[in-house]
């Protein structure tokens, strides 16, 4: 599923950037809009001179997580016995979301080290007071856990409730007739949550990045 999401993002981006025109039309407009949005996310956290290099990361995070969140909206496929999902939102898997979170957090450390030098990087753990050092260490882990688990929790809950509502339809004729009443608003809400979580993930990634990269 993650591969499908990645393919969709890659195809949309490349097709959108294939015939570049000074007067953009269609898909190019959309891709440029996404890029402007990414730029806005970055510049609201750090100076563009420093943040410009992260545009590919932020863009891919935003777009990929959005697509991944949307994949579970139209339908889901799962095996009956061991509930192995064939088609769902890949982001409802904690392994995937935590991997992404770890990827982002490790990148923040790498770039913090690279852009500000070893001295500044390590000094940051003892600022503004050395007493805070253990908390700073905990902060790094909590950042990683909250970043990954927030996305997972939202999307997993959305899918769980969707499955529960759909299982109403299995209760009989009345259930089958009335199941769409809660289902429709729930799926609309799911789209909203999916978009929001993609934005939050990209935004927080840049917030953490800015913490590590910018001098205070």
């Amino acid at each position, binding site marked *: 599923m993650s591969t499908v999401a*990645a393919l969709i*993002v890659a195809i949309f981006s490349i097709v*959108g950037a294939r015939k*570049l025109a000074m007067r953009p039309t269609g898909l190019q407009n959309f891709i440029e809009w996404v890029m402007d949005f990414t730029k806005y996310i970055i510049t609201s956290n750090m100076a563009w001179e420093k943040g410009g290099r992260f545009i590919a990361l932020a863009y891919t995070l935003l777009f990929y997580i959005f697509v991944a969140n949307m994949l579970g909206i139209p339908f889901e496929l799962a095996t009956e016995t061991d509930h192995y999902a064939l088609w769902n939102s890949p982001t409802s898997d904690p392994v995937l979301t935590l991997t992404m979170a770890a990827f982002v957090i490790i990148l923040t450390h790498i770039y913090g080290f690279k852009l500000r030098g070893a001295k500044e990087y390590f000094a940051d753990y003892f600022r503004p007071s050395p007493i805070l050092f253990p908390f700073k260490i905990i902060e790094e882990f909590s950042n990683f856990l909250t970043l990954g688990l927030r996305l997972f929790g939202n999307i997993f809950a959305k899918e769980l409730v969707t499955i529960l509502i759909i299982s109403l339809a299995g209760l009989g004729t009345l259930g089958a007739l009335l199941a769409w009443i809660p289902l429709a608003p729930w799926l609309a809400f799911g789209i909203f949550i999916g978009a929001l979580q993609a934005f939050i993930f990209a935004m927080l990634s840049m917030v953490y990045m800015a913490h590590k990269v910018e001098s205070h």
Partner: protein
Amino acid sequence: MDMMDFIADIQWGNALYQLVIFSLLIWVVSRWALKPLLGVMKKREQQVNDNLDNAEKSRAEAEQYLEQQREELKKAREDTQAMIDNANKMSEQQAKEILDNAKAEGERLKEAAAADINREKEQALESVRDQVASLSVAIATKVIEKELDEDEQEKLIDSYLKEVGNE
């Protein structure tokens, strides 16, 4: 031991796969979509800036040109006014001159005519006098033939002259 079990339970393969896929995606998207797109966006921004600058410059130029034209028009109008005034003055002067000339010419003609008349008159008188003289000579010869004395001859000449002068 529980911790170890938990760690072993994690689907490390999935995590690694996801890591690779995502890194690959970032690379692909950045290489084939974002870099060219950023270039175009930058170029467009540049172009828009240039266009705005150019428009501003053209506007300023046009304004300057308009000001210049207005100045020139004003100057032309003033020139024309001056020319018209000049022409008016000149024509007036010419008219006066012509009139004066005509008057002088008339005066001169009149004087010339008067002089002519006088001269004619003198000439006429002269010829009359000549004729009178010859006449008087003729009369004298006749009178002498009739033996006239000097007194009567004098009277006769005078009376003749008077007659001629009254004519």
